[in-house]
């Protein structure tokens, strides 16, 4: 029986010829990423160990991205703990450089790797042909001390993509549609694998957006094959080379296969308060908004900013609406600056912020109040996610968000 990409990556990490779904294996991890959401707790647990030790510090990447700049004395204490430990132990450390998954894609991840991240959207690395999965601080600590962990090999659900996305329809609309189709639990414990002729019509930014959101369908990981687009991205970003390039075998077993024609995808939103609460944008036209957010690990890349800027150019943000534009990394920010995009956003009346998780995280920037409505390219819209427990979050693409910011209500991305 052939193997899926997920099986091949785990086999490599386990040092085995082959593995199959359902088996449990001990693996060596290629990277262990942690951010300021939980590292302070990991350090406390580490210090309580009888024999605290780090297996391989070169595999650890610590990134302060959630509450940046720091929002409170309590946060400052937690971040100081993380910063000091990283400095004292020679751990690769970023603060203010950008959102963790964007940094990992820009600077670290290569195809074939098995990566634990103490953040649910670690599945994003599938865009680079790597098996990334989210874990909590205990699993992280175990990996830090031993260099490895145990994994159960997941079944794979395959998505065969054909055709091309239409104008102003984005990868965000695609992945939201897929999550709406299979449900918030539809891929629980599974790998979601994306293949097909349509892949060549998806940029690396599109691919990251797709893989990043798979955890919202319950997926353990998301995976894609390595092609010229992947290799070009790696070359542009530090001349990185793959560790291994995997494709699923012709006789690999998939639990289910969905065939999706990209040209049938339309602009959609996820309505409050669930990521799978899908509706075409046209069905929610007219919903008044108080705030709009363009950013996050899902849609804070240069392509998203270009799209948003092309729509808002020459228009103004609606009266009494706050529009926050937050590039996902310093690299994106500087590129946007060079291209004149930030000027376009500011001319329109948007607030351009430093690279961080920002509004998506609901704790540090652009927090919304009781009764307020946010339209966002962030990852989740659970009740209270962006601020007050009685507030409302709609998730949509960069195009839908930019158009809605102008209108002051949710509108189709074709409006301007």
């Amino acid at each position, binding site marked *: 029986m052939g193997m899926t990409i997920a099986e091949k990556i785990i086999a490599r990490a386990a040092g085995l010829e082959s593995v199959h779904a359902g088996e449990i294996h001990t693996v060596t991890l290629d990277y262990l990423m942690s951010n300021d959401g939980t590292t302070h707790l990991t350090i406390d647990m580490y210090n309580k160990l009888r024999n605290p030790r780090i297996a391989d510090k070169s595999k650890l990447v610590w990134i302060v991205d959630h*509450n940046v700049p720091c929002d409170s004395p*309590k946060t400052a204490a937690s*971040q100081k703990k993380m910063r000091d430990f990283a400095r004292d132990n020679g751990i690769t450390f970023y603060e203010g450089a950008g959102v963790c998954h964007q940094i990992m894609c820009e600077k670290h991840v290569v195809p074939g790797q098995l990566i634990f991240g103490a953040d649910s959207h670690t599945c994003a690395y599938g865009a680079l042909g790597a098996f990334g999965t989210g874990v*909590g601080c205990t699993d992280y600590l175990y990996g830090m001390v031993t260099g490895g962990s145990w994994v159960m090999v997941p079944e794979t659900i395959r998505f065969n993509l054909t055709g091309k996305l239409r104008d102003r329809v984005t990868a965000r609309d695609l992945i939201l549609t897929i999550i709406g189709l299979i449900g918030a*639990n539809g891929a629980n414990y599974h790998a979601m694998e994306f293949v097909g002729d349509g892949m060549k019509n998806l940029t690396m930014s599109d691919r990251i957006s797709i893989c990043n959101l798979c955890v919202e369908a319950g997926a353990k990981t998301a995976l894609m094959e390595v092609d010229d687009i992947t290799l070009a991205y790696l070359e542009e970003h530090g001349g990185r080379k793959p560790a291994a390039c995997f494709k699923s075998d012709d006789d690999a077993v998939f639990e289910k296969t969905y065939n999706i024609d990209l040209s049938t995808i339309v602009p959609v939103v996820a309505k409050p308060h669930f990521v799978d609460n899908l509706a075409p944008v046209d069905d929610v036209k007219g919903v008044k908004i108080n705030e709009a957010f363009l950013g996050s690990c899902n849609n804070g890349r240069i392509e998203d900013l270009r799209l948003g800027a092309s729509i808002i150019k020459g228009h103004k943000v609606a009266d009494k609406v706050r529009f926050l534009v937050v590039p996902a990394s310093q690299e994106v920010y500087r590129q946007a600056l060079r291209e004149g995009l930030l000027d376009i956003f500011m001319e329109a009346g948007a607030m351009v912020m430093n690279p961080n998780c920002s509004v998506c995280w609901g704790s540090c920037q652009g927090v919304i109040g009781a009764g307020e409505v946010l339209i966002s390219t962030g990852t989740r819209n659970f009740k209270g996610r962006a601020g007050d427990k009685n507030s409302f979050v709609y998730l949509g693409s960069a195009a839908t968000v930019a158009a809605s910011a102008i209108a002051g209500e949710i509108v189709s991305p074709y409006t301007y």
Partner: protein
Amino acid sequence: MGKVFRFNKDVDTDQIIASQYLLYPTVEEMKAHTFESLDANFASEVKPGDFVVADTNFGCGSSREQAPAVLKALGVRAVLAPSFARIFYRNSINIGLPAIVCDGLYDAVKTGDEISLDMEKGIVTFGDKTFPCTKLPVHLQKILDQGGLISSLDEM
């Protein structure tokens, strides 16, 4: 025996413990805010030995380990649901908080009911009714029996 606190389906980690509390220095400081947006009285009313009973996909959303950790810190004996989101489930077992797959219990109970759990036999009892629980895979049961994953690190 312990009291049931019943929640619905798709209870996500932002509901269990909201983002603004996660960077507090310790779980002890966070636990007072557990389930705040769903039940403002939960943290003050729950007693050690009580249970959280919920519908499908409990713990979906973020990988924040603070979610099972605050429940454990409040003395919750176990979380029972027909299904759990992956990361929450793994985190729960890792810290020694039993996350037990149990069908039918959610429909049968309401907040305030008293139930008991026999982990060895894998049965929940409510009055004269019993509900079988899915046994954990051997390796996960081992982690739980040890009180969590970290204790195995100290054995090495």
